[in-house]
């Protein structure tokens, strides 16, 4: 647990001296690593977002205007791969890297050097995947699911797929180590008084996410190893003509792939919970139910993988259907918890709260359409059409991405000591929210009309060009909204208004230390008597942090 950065000086608001490049390269401080994670994943986010814009431009009208077939195939593969493996999931892990020790009153994570390794593995994995673009045969182009046998040597001889496999292996190793680190830290390093039932909901969700990672990523590594053996070492795991099975790949991949979607959502549920609680000035409603719901989601998520295979005719559809339906129940509980948290609260709407509300509104559409695609007969129609693409974008982009932006606005002041511009933030929110929905609502419709996913162009059937053009226009608005937030980050990093220790009236421990926190996080800890110690600290006359139902004010 030795931090390599310079020791704290007298002035606690800033790290002793400005960290130089070398300090960043060798750091083992969880805050610095968290910042590296978040900055890197935002970088990949911009790349993947730019790719999405190119795809939308190509799809604006029927015909091949912008990119060629094989180029498009690389684009959606890279966009999906980056968004999933390099943006949404690792940003959450980076955020947890920064916040988890602060949330539980610890000085660092349990294994700081391993923590640094996870970051460098992630970066190397991402660069490895993208390096395929330098090959004459191009980067992997078989979709982020990399289905065999399309991805085998016979059908895709170029080394782009091998690079993709190696990159994904590095990322899965990184995620597994991070999960072990988080779990160990929460088990061993909680501050005195921080009992399990006083952990912030975000921390609970990171615990559950880590458990899911430990269950889901080893199978991913197996799938990747088998794919590589098939490609380069003469294996036949997925080759039907030699006794292998294409269906086997799908089983192993989705045994990872479905739980992965909860890795990409549970941390963001935690973010929204904390943002909503803070800006409603209310404790989290139904805390225990919230925690149990997360565990229920984790448990069920291990038994639904084959809902991605309803149309193969090779799985027990009713079983995987009912299991998938059941996940709607704990997810619904979260919604009612958020509503209960806002109920009778005193709501204010800074940008972080707006993005959290945007999350709730968008993710709901992802949820109800999720119940539709969990019904095999309906899935027979919409599977692998734009309806499905839109369903998962409502959960991952309309959902997780909005919560990611909420997290940026909420914790940027803690991380930098400066506020983001609220005016830019508001504007960014409205452009993002409206642009997002203009982009994706038409895609629900064109999906129902039968437009397949992963196509470089489409027939000019009635309605298709109009709906696609609307979607592309919306993507432009959305991009403007995101660009404003990025600009906001850049200018506020050095010129934002000073934030003070606690600009929002937050409840969790990080708001009880300085912004940015000192090297070992806390000079002194407040007494911890609830899941909102910072809130209790400001309410010395014993306002009910605990179970009491008192009314104050």
């Amino acid at each position, binding site marked *: 647990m030795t931090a390599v950065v310079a020791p704290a000086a007298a002035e606690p608001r800033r790290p002793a001296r400005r960290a130089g490049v070398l300090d960043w390269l060798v750091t083992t401080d969880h805050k610095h690593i968290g910042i590296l994670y978040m900055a890197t994943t935002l970088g990949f986010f911009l790349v993947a977002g730019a790719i999405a814009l190119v795809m939308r431009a190509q799809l604006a009208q029927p015909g091949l205007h912008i990119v060629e*077939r094989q180029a498009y*195939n690389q684009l959606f593969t890279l966009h999906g791969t980056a968004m999933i493996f390099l943006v949404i999931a690792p940003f959450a892990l980076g955020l947890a890297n920064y916040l988890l020790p602060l949330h539980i009153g610890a000085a660092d994570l349990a294994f700081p050097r391993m923590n640094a390794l996870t970051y460098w593995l992630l970066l190397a994995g991402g660069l490895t995947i993208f390096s395929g673009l330098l090959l004459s045969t191009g980067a992997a*182009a078989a979709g982020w699911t990399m*289905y065999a*046998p*399309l991805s085998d040597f016979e059908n895709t001889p170029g080394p782009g797929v091998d690079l993709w496999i190696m990159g994904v292996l590095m990322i899965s190793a990184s995620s597994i180590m991070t999960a072990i680190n988080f779990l160990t830290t929460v088990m061993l390093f909680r501050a005195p008084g921080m009992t399990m039932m006083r952990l912030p909901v975000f921390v609970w969700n990171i615990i559950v996410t880590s458990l899911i990672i430990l269950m889901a990523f080893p199978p991913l590594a197996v799938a990747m190893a088998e794919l590589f053996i098939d490609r380069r070492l003469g294996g036949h795991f997925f080759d039907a*003509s030699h006794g292998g099975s*294409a*269906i086997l790949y799908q089983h192993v991949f989705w045994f990872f792939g479905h739980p992965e979607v909860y890795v990409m959502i549970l941390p963001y549920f935690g973010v929204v919970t904390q943002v909503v609680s803070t800006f*409603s000035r*209310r404790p989290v*409603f139904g805390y225990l139910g919230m925690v149990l719901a997360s565990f229920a989601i984790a448990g069920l998520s291990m038994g639904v993988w084959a809902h991605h295979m309803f*149309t*193969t005719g*090779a799985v027990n559809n*009713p079983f995987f*259907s009912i299991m998938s339906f059941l996940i709607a*129940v704990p997810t*619904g*509980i979260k919604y*009612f918890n958020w*509503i*209960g948290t806002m*109920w*009778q*609260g*005193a709501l*204010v709407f800074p940008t972080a709260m*707006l993005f959290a*509300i945007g999350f709730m*509104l968008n993710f709901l559409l992802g949820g*109800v359409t999720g*119940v*539709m695609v969990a019904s095999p*007969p309906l899935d*027979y*129609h919409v599977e*692998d059409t734009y309806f499905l693409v839109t369903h998962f974008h409502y959960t991952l982009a309309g959902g997780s991405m909005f919560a990611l932006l909420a997290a940026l606005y909420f914790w940027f002041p803690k991380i930098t000591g400066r506020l983001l511009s609220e*005016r*830019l933030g*508001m504007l960014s929110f409205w452009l993002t*929210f*409206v642009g997002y929905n203009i982009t994706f609502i*038409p895609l629900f*419709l064109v999906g*129902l*009309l*039968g437009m*397949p996913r992963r196509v470089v*162009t*489409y*027939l000019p059937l009635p309605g298709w060009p109009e709906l696609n053009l609307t979607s592309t226009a919306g993507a432009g608005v959305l991009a403007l909204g995101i660009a404003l937030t990025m600009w906001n980050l850049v*200018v506020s990093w050095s010129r934002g208004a000073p934030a003070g220790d606690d600009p929002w009236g937050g409840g969790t421990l990080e708001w009880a230390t300085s912004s940015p926190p000192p090297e070992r996080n806390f000079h002194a800890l407040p007494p911890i008597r609830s899941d909102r110690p910072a809130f209790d600290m400001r309410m010395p006359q014993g*306002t009910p942090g605990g*179970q*009491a*139902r008192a*009314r*104050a*004010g």
Partner: protein
Amino acid sequence: MRMDPGWVRRAGVVCRRYASAPLLAVAGLGLSGCASPLPGAATVQGQRIAHLWAVFFLSAAGVAGAVYGLILWCIVRYRRRSDGLPPQYRDNIPVEIMYTAVPVGIVAFLFALTYGTEIHVDRVAPRPDVTINVTAFKWSWLFDYPGTGITVAGTPDYPPIAMVPVGRTVRIVLTSTDVVHAFYIPSFLYKRDATPGLVQRFDLEIRRPGEYLGECVEFCGFDHTRMRFWLRAVPPAQFDRWIEQGPRVVHQRVRYTAP
């Protein structure tokens, strides 16, 4: 803080003042967005799927409407009005039990309907009227009519047009020779994967004559986009005459010019 131009500042003020009204509008838009008609279901099986869709759509609209209503109510009703500390209660067990139990009831209902529909859609007749062996390959389709010597073959440039009779049970026997493809006909609301090494069987009973577009919807590489086909559904008598023309390989002669 002087970094925003004036128009940004003014827009920010407007946004803040009317923070909740547009949320309502966009939420409404979101709901009406899914209210789309499906393509008219042209098979008996597809009709059942369309009925199930209607129930799911209404349930989804009801649930989403209720939840949106609650969220928007909170936003409007509970916005901060004074500096007082709001009530700090943290649970309400009866309410929590209710919002766990009611969704269980809803999904049980939806699952029952799903199961009933799926049994019908997946049922294969003991003796179908017509059988067609469909083989997917990179990047087109082969339709083989066993016992007749007739084969309809396609290429990406010349997608195949396969004949099928209306009102009879058509058995599709589906497989692939190379990678995973999927046989999808939007107007039938139906698809099935074509997996190498696996033979799939399903029945279609087409209700009205017409030309129905078919698409490959499992990504299969370079020319996936153009892996289309058409089913030409004709009255049974016409179909029989087509069969009686004797064994042959039918190639589509019209080059398909659209993208």
